[in-house]
């Protein structure tokens, strides 16, 4: 099995990707108990933003990331203010259902607007380095893969420091554990939710930018990838934030290894099978004690 290291290498890159796409979703769910199934569609927006910034104004897609993230942060805040805040008063079960339904409507709007604006044709972002392949001990690794790993590592570090060291970050963690107790101590829950929504979408924007570097983009990527994200979310344990990367890696490895056995087109079955198995045996996710 000479391909094994190669498969593993691709698995790592894919796993990091899964984690990156999921982290924004899990943050929002952990803090607010909203299942934003439109998260993938926002990632798609980020990908297109990255693409057009490059095509129209020659801004390198890596350099445009802060801009894309800032824009998406604002979109997230807007999204909260206009829509998601209406759900904050209802009970958790109703909120989960309602947020799914609401996000569903957003998918309709976002995905179809993308089709209307940019057609269903695939677009590929090509810079001087996007096709570069590196060779390392017999394994071929795309340069963009390393870039994505690098960017994601930065993001993980930044998130870790933010949640662990800053007051706002700690307030976010406290709110996600027990919002009522947090509010009884004076935390402004509305503001916490607003910021969390912004951060969630900013992370979606980052995922989109990384996506644009690595894969061809089209309006349907949102729906496809949010599905992966949701399975990774369940795998990690809904509400867990940091564990999604490990869960993403595990899932990617499983997919990669199984694609050798049953063929790449049936990748989706692996995610589904994993999903069902987890639900039957360990619904709280892999990392719950």
């Amino acid at each position, binding site marked *: 099995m000479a391909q094994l290291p190669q498969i593993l290498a691709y698995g790592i890159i894919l796993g990091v990707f899964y984690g990156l796409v999921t982290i924004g979703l899990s943050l929002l769910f952990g803090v607010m108990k909203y299942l934003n199934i439109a998260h993938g569609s926002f990632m798609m927006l980020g990908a297109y933003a990255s693409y057009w910034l490059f095509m129209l104004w020659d801004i390198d897609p890596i350099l445009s990331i802060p801009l894309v993230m800032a824009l998406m942060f604002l979109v997230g805040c807007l999204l909260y203010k206009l829509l998601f805040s209406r759900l904050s008063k209802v009970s958790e079960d*109703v909120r*989960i259902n309602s947020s799914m*339904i*609401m996000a569903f409507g957003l998918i*309709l*709007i976002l995905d179809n*607007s993308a089709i209307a604006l940019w057609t269903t044709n695939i677009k590929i972002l090509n810079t001087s380095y996007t096709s570069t392949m590196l060779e390392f001990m017999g394994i071929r690794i795309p340069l963009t893969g390393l870039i994505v790993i690098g960017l994601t590592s930065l993001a993980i570090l930044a998130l870790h420091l933010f949640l662990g060291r800053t007051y706002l970050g700690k307030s976010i963690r406290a709110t996600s554990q027990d919002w009522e107790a947090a509010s009884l101590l004076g935390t402004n829950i509305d503001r916490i939710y607003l910021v969390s929504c912004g951060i969630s979408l900013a992370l979606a924007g980052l995922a989109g930018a990384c996506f644009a570097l690595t894969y061809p983009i089209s309006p349907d990527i949102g729906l496809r990838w949010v599905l992966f994200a949701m399975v990774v979310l369940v795998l990690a344990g809904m509400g867990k934030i940091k564990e999604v990367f490990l869960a993403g890696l595990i899932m990617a490895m499983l997919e990669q290894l199984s694609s050798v056995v049953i063929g790449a*087109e*049936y990748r989706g079955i692996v995610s589904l099978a994993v999903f069902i198995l987890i*639900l039957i045996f360990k619904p709280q996710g892999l990392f719950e004690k």
Partner: protein
Amino acid sequence: MNKLKQAASSIGLTGTIVIVFALALIVVPLVVDLGNYILTILISLLVFVTLSESWNLMGGYAGQVNLGLAAYFGTGALCYMLVYRAGAPLPVAMVAGGLGATVVACIIGPPTLRLRGAYFGIGTMAVAEVLRLISTTTFTQTIYSPASYWITFTLTKSYYIALAVAIGTIVVAYLVVHSRLGLVLQAIRDDEDAANASGINPARYKMIVFIISSFLAGVAGGVLSYHRGNINVPGQFTMDWTIGAIVAATIGGWGTLTGPVLGSMIFVLLREILGRTVPTGYLIVTGVVFVLVITFLPDGLTSSGAMIRSALGWGGRSSEATLPE
């Protein structure tokens, strides 16, 4: 005349309108030639009614949001076609479609229904997408109906099949809602923990209604396949059908029986009017309307149909079970 009035008041204004409407749908095409275009739209409408009513049983009454309705629709279409081609008579093929969908439900139901709503949403969505992916690789070619079909098919026949299924679905929904099952489901929807504490096993009842709901969606798949004559399998598994059903049920008012009908009409209307201009434009507008409707329901699961009804000035109490405030 008095007896008529009595009957009408016991059913309520909406109920009466529904019955009159249903009668019209049955009788008018026999008398008037509506033409292919209108009949086709009506068939499409009836399929959406069936789908949205079946979705509503899960979503509006049991509180379980099924995001992958397409899985049951598509499986139904496929099973129907395969059984029909194998030589079975039409009704048998239709039932086979429903049963095929039920099988899928039995796979994803048990693990997801005993957990909170989010898992069901994710699970159903995953199943639908996976089935779509599998079907893209497995069924690359269109499947055609058997020879007997092409000889016996008429648009009118297709219309009445669709109508029968739609009416049947509403009847089934009515029976479920007004039975003990319906009460239990609403108790579960309103407070699953409380229901659990009073000795009800929520998972079991959710599973029962899931089987019913998926069966109906599967039959709807068969109806559409009959109408089309051939099916491009992957196309039956796309989100479009889920979208239509959910939008129809939500705009029209979930948790009511007439809501999905109303919503389906609005959805199909929007599609016809706007679909002419920009192909995806109607979806965007639908999405906007959809989000607006959702946003102004502070409790999420309140009947939007009641809002629309009061906005249109229809007051009137309906006999069906509506959601408490």
